[in-house]
């Protein structure tokens, strides 16, 4: 054997031997997780207000809603919303089952109501979204109105400006408040 071949044999000794590993750590599935934020962080329900005056009542020009600044605060990678917009963030993730689909729905009552029992159909309120991920639309006054489906892992964030359509004249609310109220509830689920 000449010296060249001896060197090659020596270098081949760097090849790692067979495995003798015995300790094994099995990483099980983690818990799936969904996260939903509507409006301000830290809980609480934001109030969107529409001020309809006698001069513009029922003229068909939508009345833009106003809301506290906190309702559109920045979050994570999402910048603060423009003034009087409401921040929506929906996130879903799961490491056990790939590509699960999450759904965002909203339940709205049939009507806004005044203290005196007068009503305005909830479908007289709509919204304009800053992003097509949650498209612009209007409330249907039903339970479980589907707004968005998306495949996890993903976080969706948009800002919405609510509007009262002002399509007709409604009687003023009760004398004490002159207002109509209604609450909508958003639900994020990942079956």
């Amino acid at each position, binding site marked *: 054997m000449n010296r060249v071949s001896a060197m090659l044999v*020596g270098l081949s000794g760097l090849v790692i031997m067979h495995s003798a590993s015995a300790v094994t750590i099995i990483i*099980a*599935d983690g818990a799936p997780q969904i996260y939903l934020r509507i409006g301000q962080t830290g809980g609480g329900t934001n109030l969107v207000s529409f001020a309809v005056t006698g001069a513009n009542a029922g003229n068909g020009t939508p009345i833009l809603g106003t809301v506290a600044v906190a309702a559109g605060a920045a979050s994570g990678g999402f910048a603060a919303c423009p003034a009087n917009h409401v921040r929506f963030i929906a996130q879903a*993730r799961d490491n056990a089952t790939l590509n699960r689909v999450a759904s965002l729905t909203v339940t709205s009552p049939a009507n806004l109501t005044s203290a005196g029992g007068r009503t305005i159909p909830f479908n007289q309120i709509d919204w304009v979204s800053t992003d097509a991920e949650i498209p612009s639309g209007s409330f249907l006054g039903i339970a479980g109105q589907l707004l968005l489906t998306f495949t996890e892992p993903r976080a969706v964030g948009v800002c919405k400006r609510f509007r009262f359509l002002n399509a007709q004249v409604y009687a003023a609310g009760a004398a004490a408040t002159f207002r109509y109220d209604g609450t909508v509830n958003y639900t994020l689920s990942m079956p």
Partner: protein
Amino acid sequence: MKWPGQTLLMACMAATLGPWQVVVASSLDDSASPRQRVEVKPRWLYQGEDALSPERIGRMVVDVPNLEIRLNTAEFRGKSARIFLSLPQLVPGITAPEGLRAEWRARGAMQAGSIMPGGRTLVFDGLIERAQTVEFFDFTIFIDTRFTQRGIRFEPKFEIEVR
């Protein structure tokens, strides 16, 4: 008998390789370790609004504290050696190397470090004093679910090089 050019070839190889030293790496048997199979459940690394970016949304972490590893070093007792912790390139449940990274802290003589699939990290450099080298590791394993499937198996291997 030399064939034409042999001397030149040898001179070139010697210049390339420099001083020649054979270092043989051998796998160390850790089958005496008391916990052969450890099952752990990961948690999300970022919660709530801290997890909203695509880079963070799939990050999970799992802690494996105080894992006792007993290495059979009888064959190398009294020798100066280096011990490495390594991972194979293909880790079950991991679809890309960036899907897993492990960090550890050792409670004894071994060094802290980190590793990804296909990696090899020095954990000990010194005299092998005992027939069985025992170390307690606190592992923290980070996974990115964008690059994982179910059934992730983290199997650290220990290799020794005697000098």
